[in-house]
């Protein structure tokens, strides 16, 4: 299992992501955004979190035109598995690989804390190790995590089971920290090979650091 991790200027979660996947037994490679192709043995491409291009213009807006993104789009369109975490999610929505957009949090504050999430749909490689309705404890750290999609788009997400995770309380009831439409924390594309979420599963790999619920999430990719 080979995990390739993208690094833009301003990315800051690439080493956490590397640690997480290596802990699970994968081999990893971090590649700079100027690369024009992906390593040919890539089984999963991760667009890691951070602040690509300082979030200038909009979060993820400039990164979507980095040289490597052509190869990423081609990889995704050929069925390759792609995971965008936090800023990676923003990049993937900007690039049109995932539906919707991420706006400024409703409360206007940067939110950095552990948050519980409810698993909405596990019929995909990402969440297949979890059950629908399970609650996981995963850190969030974002300013622009307020997921927006119009009503038609939302209907389509539900019709295709593309809503992956929602922000909830510990009982799985809705608790919305940032104003996201229907409290959505993560979605996938129609083909279920491109995934994006604002929370950071790669930061929830060690119980001594508050939670190891990220293990069950990221393991899904290694099993497939």
């Amino acid at each position, binding site marked *: 299992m080979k995990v390739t991790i993208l690094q833009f200027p301003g990315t800051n979660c690439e080493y956490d992501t590397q640690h997480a996947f290596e802990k699970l037994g994968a081999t990893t490679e971090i590649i700079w955004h100027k690369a024009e192709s992906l390593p040919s043995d890539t089984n999963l491409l991760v667009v890691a979190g951070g602040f690509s291009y300082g979030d200038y213009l909009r979060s993820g807006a400039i990164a979507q035109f980095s040289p490597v993104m052509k190869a990423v789009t081609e990889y995704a369109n050929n069925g390759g598995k792609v995971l965008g975490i936090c800023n990676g999610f923003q990049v993937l929505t*900007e690039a049109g690989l995932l539906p*919707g*957009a991420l*706006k*400024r949090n*409703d409360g206007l504050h940067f939110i950095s804390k552990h948050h519980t999430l409810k698993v909405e749909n596990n019929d995909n490689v990402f969440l297949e190790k979890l059950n629908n309705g399970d609650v996981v404890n995963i850190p969030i750290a974002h300013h622009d995590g307020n997921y927006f999609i119009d009503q038609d788009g939302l209907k389509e997400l539900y019709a295709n089971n593309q809503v992956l995770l929602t922000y909830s309380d510990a009982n799985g009831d809705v608790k919305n920290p940032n*104003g996201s439409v229907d409290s959505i924390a993560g979605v996938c594309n129609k083909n279920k090979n491109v995934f994006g979420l604002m929370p950071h599963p790669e930061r929830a790999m060690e119980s001594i650091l508050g939670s190891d619920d990220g293990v069950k999430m990221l393991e899904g990719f290694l099993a497939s």
Partner: protein
Amino acid sequence: MTTAIINVSLKAGVLDSQGKAVHHALDSLHFEGVSDVRVGKQIVIKLDTDDKTVAMSEVEKMCEEILANTVIEDYKIELI
């Protein structure tokens, strides 16, 4: 030379949290009669061309491709 002034703001119907916060601040400063506040951003671009039609079509392309995220934002272009 043509200067393009582009105003990008959240679409009507998309909640503008910053606009709302500014509205509250204006209320607390006792400015009366404010019915709505929207916060956006302005981008100013200088183009070599003098041809306004060419400039407009170029800037429209820029807006669609990168300057605005048309999922959530509208843009208005003014050429001078």
